[in-house]
């Protein structure tokens, strides 16, 4: 079947098998940041945006994204680097395999709720598993990033 998708801002038309999963579709299109960690929708590694909302691309047919916008970390390089630098400053990116999905979902959180509290952060990101970090360094990175953002905003409004 034929589908039209706006992938990272670029309109593409592709002939696909109806049972192709979105994760395999975007990887085929070179969006290798999207990772698979399970077959049961439990790890969050495959998180992408569908019309700016985070979804698990392993649990969605590519056909379902027909006519819609799909964004992966490849399309959010600046935001990823800006926030990711705070994770890097903790050394909390470690093996890195969970990072794209985690960072996608964190960016979604910041868009939805620019000043989340610690519990809100944990709840929102609960579906993003990480086996390396113990989550503590990721949390420190997020809190530092949010503090920096807040300072920046204040600086601008002064």
């Amino acid at each position, binding site marked *: 079947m034929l589908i039209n998708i706006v992938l990272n801002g670029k309109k593409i038309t592709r002939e696909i098998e109806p049972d192709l999963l979105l994760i395999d579709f975007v990887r085929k299109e070179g969006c*290798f*940041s*999207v*990772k698979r*960690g*399970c*077959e*049961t929708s*439990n*790890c969050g*590694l495959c998180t992408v945006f569908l019309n700016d909302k985070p979804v698990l691309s392993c649990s969605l047919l590519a056909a379902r994204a027909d006519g819609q916008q799909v964004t*992966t*970390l*490849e399309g959010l*390089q600046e935001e*990823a*680097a800006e*926030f*990711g*630098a705070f*994770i*890097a*400053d*903790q*050394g*909390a*990116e*470690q*093996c*890195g*395999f*969970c*990072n*794209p999905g985690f*960072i996608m979902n964190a960016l979604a959180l910041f868009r939805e709720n620019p000043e989340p509290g610690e519990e809100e952060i*944990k*709840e929102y*990101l*609960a*579906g*993003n*598993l*990480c*086996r*390396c*970090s*113990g*989550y*503590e*360094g*990721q*949390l420190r990175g997020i809190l530092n990033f949010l503090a920096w953002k807040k300072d920046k905003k204040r600086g601008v409004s002064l």
Partner: protein
Amino acid sequence: MKIVNQPLRKKDAMQLVTGQPVYMDDIAPANCLVVKLLRSPHANAIVTSINTAIAAKVPGIEAIYTWEDVDQDARRFTCAGQTYPEPSPYDRLLLDRHVRFVGDPVAIVAGETEKAVDKALSLIKVQYEILEPILDFHQSLDNKILIHPEDNWESLCPVGADNKRNLCAHDECGAGDIEAVLADCDVVIDRVYHTKAVQQTMMETFRTFCTIDTYGRLNVVSSTQIVFHCRRIIANALHIPQTKIRVSKPRIGGGFGAKQTSITEIYPAFVTWMTKKPSKLIFSREESMIASTPRHEMEVHVRVGAMNDGKIRAIDVYTLSNTGAYGEHGPTTVGLSGHKSIPLYRTESYRFVSDVVYTNRMSAGAYRGYGATQGLFAVESAVNELAAKLDIDPIELREMNIAREGDMMPAYYDSWNTSSALDRCLKRVREMSRWDEKYPVRDMGNGKVRSLGIGMSMQGSSIPFVDVGSATLKVNDDGFYTLIIGSADMGTGCDTVLAQIAAEVLECEYDDVTVFGADTDVSPYDSGSYASSTTYLTGKAVEICAQKLRGKICALGAQLLGCSADEVVFDGRCVTRTQPAADGKNSIALADIATASMCGNSVALEETVTKSSPVSPPPYMVGVAEVEVDLLTGQAEVIEFNAVVDCGTPINPNLARVQAEGGILQGIGMALMENITYTPEGRVVENSLMQYKIPSRVDIGHIHVEFESSYEGTGPFGAKSIGEVVINTPGPAIAHAIYNATGHRYYELPITPEQIVMPEK
């Protein structure tokens, strides 16, 4: 120190956080054949017939291999990544007619698409002669059912193995008359502890791709901790010379020991070698759960004898370990259960006896902690029980009995305790956890109680006399350096840590050292990243290598300045004469030396150093868990985990900290939730992340890590290892805390809410 002991960013950090394509499946050629395995549904069976004719006709299928394509009488091999001759028995064939666990490979299928391969897998017809399995490891030794009856089974090392007894290893050692000392003690704690098999659960499953290179050689790119061992294992499995094989690793999405065993490599290697076409095998999460290399299940019988005043006099440990269907890491993991638990204490006498047996479960393997985790749960739990019995504070009891710096440690292979801040770790953790105020338990008034528990831990730093760490350093144009290593950064940050050591010695910027690794064709030989060896051993090799390279830079610099090498000094930027020269040519910049080295020069500006160590200095750690227990539901949550680590000098405090935090949470998972269970037929129940729960970020309060550093003279800049010691304290500390909350002692992990509300009598 300018660069060592600094919290620098990991070299690959920004590439990883921006999601660049650096892992195996991101760089595999698009035209790889998809390789999958048909797996046995039986725990113990002989393949009587296998029909692949219909499956082979599926469009797109390139090849199907079965045991008939593999010489059943050929030499067997092990998939364990260990130095040759491996202590792990040679008990595998690429495809064996005798399948020994549910999930053991029966056929290899390669095809153009995943769909075609899946179709073919479903069309292969196999008939089995089903044999009775042994699933309970208590039943294994001297059972009439033999897991490995075959005559070409082989044990290369004197580890006490005997396949005709289902015995993978046996060992005994000790000092003093253990029975006499125990008989003379006022109190003896005598308990049996049980830890289960648990999964490393790295987020990137096992995976490998293979191609044939320009020279007709097999080029293997794999998510592995052990490129050099891997080369030998593939050669052994395929029965081809090692000259034909090159193994390299890209970024690795976590290992934790799982990738110290060649789980996937041999299958696509075989496909590509036979077909001469590129191929790849990516394990599903399910395969990574049912046919991988989890922690050895162990039963540890501990007797600790002490006097009423608290003096511990003897520790006796007997460990029974379950290696599963194959012996990967069986003979070696078990040793740590005694040798890395008993030496924490000064004793008059000790004994340590162990048996490792085969069963029809998936093979166990290497998982961070490597047997120490199991032994420390047992010994530390026994010491906690002893403290209660003697009515002595558990920290005080430890302070009275721990091995101190300068002690001889008989149970630690008769070695000296050259560096230890364990006493300071105990002192600091008491403050951090507010022990005096919170221990043992506080009623929160809402049906919940909060309690504390403690555990100590030690590990090693490399395998003495065995492990080899190496480094090559060379000077490039402009005077920047390339560091080439054979150890594997699997998220641990060793590329960074090793570059920090090099930059410190070379007095250059951290960014002036680029790192390359690991590739068997290029890297100097290194046994690989395991056994807590990389920072300590490869790090030392880097340090020495950088020093030697400085010598070469001086030599060439002096030559260019027209003097001898002992008349110059190098400050990281310039080689300068100590005495002013008559011609005024006093100094030459490194960049100019580097440039000169590329024209009419006969001095190679590079150096390779290989290092092995006769000692394995233990890092130490103390952990205190604060657990909130809901007495009604049995829900136990770790709300605080306070840990103090002595890893010697932390080369990169950030990376040491995240290592500790991550290891602690894995330990918490093992203590409270993770468990591999089997159906009566021998099938793994927890075959997905749905059933096999690892901690998520809502399952943990906060983890606090601090360092109390001793200085280890044999390590680089005083460093010891960090990677493994950090996983061992949550087990005993949490069990202890739950005892303080409920009054019930737990001798088995994990401790589930059901067991807390309804404890077995």
